[in-house]
């Protein structure tokens, strides 16, 4: 009866990011924004970003309350997509979501996720997958509009 297995999920970097999340707050005059809400736990996050003329994400931020998984995931997501094109960001979101669902993916793809790849073990904690995917879903929504709504359900 101990919590060893929990270390698979709560790696140091995740707790670090959760305690000191990056890119928090709101971008002024964002070009895109969205509110997301995790119906399975009640977490709510608000995202803002600025796309330049070439659809590159020049700034991105989030605010809102949540568990350490959702805070860390939001923090890591914003870090990895900042400076990426919309297309690249959407591709990363797809990789992340596949990873979280336990679908197969190349090592090369995984590495594109940067720190966010440490959440790979989330698939062993099915009840928490949504905590991890929430901010990536928000990214899709923010960039593509609400038509992607179904994804997180």
């Amino acid at each position, binding site marked *: 009866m101990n919590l060893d297995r929990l270390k698979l999920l709560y790696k140091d970097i995740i707790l670090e990011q959760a305690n000191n999340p990056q890119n928090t707050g709101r971008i002024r005059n964002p070009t895109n924004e969205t509110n997301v*809400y995790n*119906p*399975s*736990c009640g977490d*709510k996050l608000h995202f803002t970003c600025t796309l330049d003329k070439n659809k590159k994400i020049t700034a991105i931020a989030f605010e809102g309350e949540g568990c350490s998984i959702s805070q860390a995931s939001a923090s890591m997501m914003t870090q990895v997509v900042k400076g990426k094109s919309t297309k690249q960001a959407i591709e990363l979101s797809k990789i992340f979501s596949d990873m979280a669902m336990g679908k197969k993916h190349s090592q090369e793809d995984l590495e594109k996720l940067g720190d966010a790849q440490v959440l790979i073990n989330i698939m062993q904690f099915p*009840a928490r997958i949504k905590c991890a995917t929430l901010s990536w879903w928000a990214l899709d929504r923010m960039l593509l509009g609400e038509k992607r709504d179904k994804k997180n*359900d």
Partner: protein
Amino acid sequence: MNKINNIRDEFPILNRKINNEPLVYLDNAATSQIPISVQNVMREFEQTARSNVHRSVDTLGNIATAKYEESRNLVKELINAPSQNDIIFTSGATESLNMIAFTLGNKIIEKGDEIVITIMEHHSNIIPWQQLARKKQASLKYIELCDNGELDLADARTKITDKTKIVAVTHASNVLGVINPVGEISQIAHQHDAIMVVDGAQAVGHFPVDVQKLDADFYAFSGHKIFGPTGTGILYGKQKLLKKMPPYRFGGEMIAHVTRANATWAQIPQKFEAGTPNYTGVIGLGAAIEFLNQIGIKNIQVKEKELVKYVLPKIENIPGITVYGPKEWAKHTGVISINLAGIHPHDVATAFDELGVEVRAGHHCAEPLMTDLGITATVRASFDFYNTKADADALINAIKQTEDFFNEFR
């Protein structure tokens, strides 16, 4: 087909006796029997994973939620809905139909609008529209029957106009045993920009249903009539309409955010599922659909047709019998409504009950239809795929004995 022949073992009730006679269960249109395998799924769930669904990060809650949502997927596939987000779980067809009337119906119907239903509807698909029409000073129009006991499609074309906002029609009648051309009526409704609501309570589980082919905007049915648990029902709705539809009931699970002064709603379909759902029931409903799939809905249809082909001509041949609805077996579902000349349906049902034959006598929640037929009640025998030719023979025999008993006196 062999599967069907051994399938009675799944229904131990079919071996019981009624008044010392073997049970002949011919009340399937009221409620169908439930297989042991479906009961076992629920029992297994209750004994290993019972837990409230949604909003939970623990193992049990997660198992329960996954199973609950798996049933949604099974329903989606059963009726070929585009997405499982189009499926709302309710407590039964009655609630499903009320939900549309009280939410979207209440929102869109205005004074002078028209709602069109048919004269053969069940009360659950009449009164919600009737009361909505009364409240809004809209008018309720009825599509009438042809002489042959079928719906008058020409009348449908006249009754549905540009003023029509909602058309609500039963897919199969619970009295006449007729299948309505809901696909055609759907087209007519859509030509006039009306919303097409289909009551599938007597259709699902008896023949294949494809809500996309029918182009139904809403489709309602009950779990307890498709070998599932009581207290379960389904409302399918097109996403674009569900998006416009206000919530039906307020409470847990259906909200996004609540403050002292206001609330916002969860995504569809959770928005329409307030409170703890009948989660064990829904899981059982999923098992019932798997049971249906295993037997094959087409096999069920063939078996029911066979029974009707066998029994209907025999019934029609007995002197003194009136059969309501179409006279040809090919146009009939397993539902057969009759009257015995000069003998009240309740007296008939009591006599049948003496012989172990369980039928339903009454207005079958279709009083306007009864009035239209000039009667107050019928005796209804409704066959399902687990019935046998022996059951059909028992019915024929019961009719004859009952006539003899009461006629002896006259």
